């Protein structure tokens, strides 16, 4: 069973959830990232996601390891879609199970924030009047050393 996947096919949410079911978990949270039509008033037609697949899987695994270290008893599975996605299509599913519910929310949220920092996946937005590769940190963060800061990678 692969806990961390990059998928060219639509993501089966239930299949991701099934990977984290455990007898000592009382809570499972999932985060489902979907393609939103309007961003800052601009209408998206569709998206293309591309990934550096081998490294992306490694970085998802790293995020899972970070979570299991930080939240005792946590179990994690993440699948990220690549290719063309239309409005309301699912880009990512994160499932986290923990013994108690507060941890399931916190650990899940940590996962999505980390994905947006260190997992090599890019989206290209297509609008009626153009298209562009998006970068969350585009022109707002520079990496003078060529890699993210230690805090980003190891925290």
């Amino acid at each position, binding site marked *: 069973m692969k806990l961390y996947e990059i998928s060219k096919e639509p993501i089966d949410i239930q299949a991701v959830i099934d990977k984290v079911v455990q007898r000592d978990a009382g809570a499972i949270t999932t985060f489902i*990232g979907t393609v939103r039509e309007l961003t800052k008033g601009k209408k998206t037609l569709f998206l293309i*996601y*591309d*990934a*550096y697949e*081998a*490294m*992306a899987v*490694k970085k998802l695994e790293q995020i899972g390891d970070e979570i299991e270290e930080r939240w005792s008893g946590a179990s994690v599975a993440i699948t*990220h879609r690549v290719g063309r996605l239309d409005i309301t299509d699912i*880009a*990512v599913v994160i499932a986290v199970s923990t013994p108690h519910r507060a941890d399931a929310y916190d650990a899940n949220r940590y996962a*999505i924030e980390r*994905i*947006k*920092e*260190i*997992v*090599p*996946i*890019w*989206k*290209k937005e297509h609008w009626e009047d153009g298209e562009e*590769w*998006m*970068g*969350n*940190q*585009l*022109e707002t*963060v*520079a*990496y*003078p*050393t*060529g*890699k*993210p800061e230690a805090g980003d*990678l190891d925290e």
Partner: protein
Amino acid sequence: MNKVLFFAHLRDAVGAESLSVAAAGKTVAELKAELSAQYDLPRMETVMTAINEEFASNDEVISDGDEIAFIPPVSGG
């Protein structure tokens, strides 16, 4: 030789998914500068680098056979 991978807007700028380059002995920064001279690579100060699928510093030295990837700011999720 080294395989150098490009993604997102860098791939559009280079016009190829990857190049085969002799980069052994060079630092990441040197390779970046060299490729920037040949191609119009925008916003390289925001681009991270990976060697063999792990983030690497600008001063890391490349070995023969290493797979290099230039990682623009990511936008998954």
